[in-house]
């Protein structure tokens, strides 16, 4: 990882910081469903930014538009000062956004190590001729790829699994492997889609430590998560989506108290009852 860039203890609300990712009125419609309705927000360098909302709120759609899998119908993302409009997924990855998937998408028949080595693709060069001739440069690059992949497996704590087939790793390790693979692309922004899903309390606690370490080492994190305890404890700021609309944004503690958020999660009637009580 790059040396920690003095973003050890960010105070996001107080000190205005450098924006890494800006969403300007991003919209996406699938047939009759408005998956995203003019969503705007800003993620600062070094933040852990939470993205929450009930099921079907548009969180994963936001990820898919951000990473170029879908084109937005309106608005745009500006990353590191440049728009992402029209970029294909592999170009977005090259710009420095890496992601994981809600329903884990590893290269199942390959080993854990190979999975991470594939993550190095975008930061390496060797082509067909390099592969065939195996010149000194290609050999050096291959060696570096493998060494880095091992490092990353150690970083996320699954180095002992390096030569196991990815599909046979325990669930929690698969989630970690996805993170290692994403980190291999040297992202500025790491977008995680429900990394704690299906984890028990111990695993979640160690995931939290990993996320804090990644942030400490200089990578900004965008986190979709249903585990509210994790979100509230690790995120600097949180964005809440409901039916594709932004209904709240701010520090975790404040968002938690927001009546609109409570209504979205518990349903309108309950919130009315709460008010009446």
């Amino acid at each position, binding site marked *: 990882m790059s040396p920690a860039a003095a973003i050890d203890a960010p105070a996001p609300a107080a000190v205005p910081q450098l924006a890494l990712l800006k969403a300007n009125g991003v919209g996406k419609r699938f047939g009759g469903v408005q998956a995203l309705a003019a969503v705007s927000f800003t993620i600062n360098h070094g933040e852990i930014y939470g993205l929450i909302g009930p099921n079907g709120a548009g969180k994963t759609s936001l990820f898919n538009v951000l990473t170029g899998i879908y084109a937005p119908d309106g608005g745009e993302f500006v990353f590191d000062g440049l728009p992402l409009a029209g970029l294909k997924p*592999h170009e977005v990855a090259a710009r420095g956004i890496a992601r994981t998937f809600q329903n884990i*998408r590893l*290269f199942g*028949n*390959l*080993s854990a190590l190979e999975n991470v080595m*594939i993550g190095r*693709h975008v930061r390496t060069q060797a082509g067909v001729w390099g592969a065939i001739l195996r010149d000194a440069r290609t050999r050096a690059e291959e060696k570096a790829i493998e060494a880095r992949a091992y490092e990353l497996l150690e970083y996320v704590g699954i180095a002992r699994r390096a030569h196991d087939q990815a599909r046979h790793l325990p669930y929690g390790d698969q989630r970690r492997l996805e993170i290692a693979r994403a980190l291999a692309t040297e992202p500025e922004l790491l977008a995680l889609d429900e990394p704690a899903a299906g984890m028990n309390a111990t695993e979640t606690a160690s995931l939290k430590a990993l996320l804090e370490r990644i942030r400490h080492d200089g990578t900004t994190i965008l986190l979709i998560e249903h585990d509210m305890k994790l979100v509230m404890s690790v995120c600097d700021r949180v964005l809440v989506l409901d039916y594709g609309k932004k209904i709240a944004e701010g520090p975790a503690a404040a968002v938690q108290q927001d009546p609109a958020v409570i209504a979205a999660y518990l349903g309108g009637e309950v919130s009315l009852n709460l008010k009446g009580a």
Partner: protein
Amino acid sequence: MQALLDLKKHPAATWIGFALVGVALLALPFALAQVGTAWVRITNLAILFVLLSLGLNIVVGFAGLLDLGYIAFYAVGAYTYALLASPHFNIHLPFWIILPIGAAIACLFGVLLGTPTLKLRGDYLAIVTLGFGEIVRIFFNNLSQPFNLTNGPQGITLIDPFHIGDFSFAKTDTFLGLSFSGPIKYYYLLTLVLLVVIVVNLRLQDSRIGRAWEAIREDEIAARAMGINTTRIKLLAFAMGASFGGIAGGMFSAMQGFISPESFILVESVMVLAMVVLGGMGNIWGVIVGALLLSFVPEVLRYTVEPVQKALFGRMLVEPEVIRMLLFGLALVLMMLFRPAGLLPSALRKRELEVKRT
């Protein structure tokens, strides 16, 4: 198996192994020639099919793109050679110029097939490639007018054999008291090309490009999200596979001296695919074994079915040709039932099957 693995750790043993294989490969054609020159020709054709299988393995085995029209690239290579080294246009270029041209044109056709099919996978891709293979064959069959490019179904005859100056691959030469017939010379050339192609394949598989192919095979969306330009990498697979097919086609043309669209029918594509699948998709050694088996077993049957029947029943009950295809089909069915990952599955596939069984 463990003993074999231990042997691998000793460099001396490795070199002795290489030397033994080398001597065997050098001596093989003379041993075969004792049985009959036909067997040297059969071996040469078998090596051509190994080359084809290795080319198709890049597309099907590495990148996971099901291609049912692969023989089209073989045809393109064969016709390129035939047109540039025959009396048909009265052009007689040397083979070492034509083979690269044939590979390049086949490569172009690979990109031509790859570009419109980039978004397709599985069954849909198979149907499109099947159509492509047929289109190429039908073109060759009909391009005799208005301008006679391919001579239609009659094919092209009197194709030049490989020659360097006065040294021709069609004549018999005596050297060191050994008689080198045309097929034997081709055998050595083919073996040399095969060794190069094997090394190229092994190196491609274990490289950044090879990993990108495997990533696409495993999960295309994840591959894209990891920064792999799937368009480029897929086209590369088609182009590389097609080039190998083109080279094999050129050699086929020169060895046979005659080609016609008949040689490039759908069954040939299916046969090459069967070799890849039978041997073990994605495993280079498995694919080689598969191609050799499917090339040799039918030939062995051709020569044994008749005498065996005569000895057993005193007369012919079933034509050799019929029983050949019957046994061939049966072997494929049994294979898929009992060894679905192929004779020599790729290491990871094998591991996967073992886990499933326990």
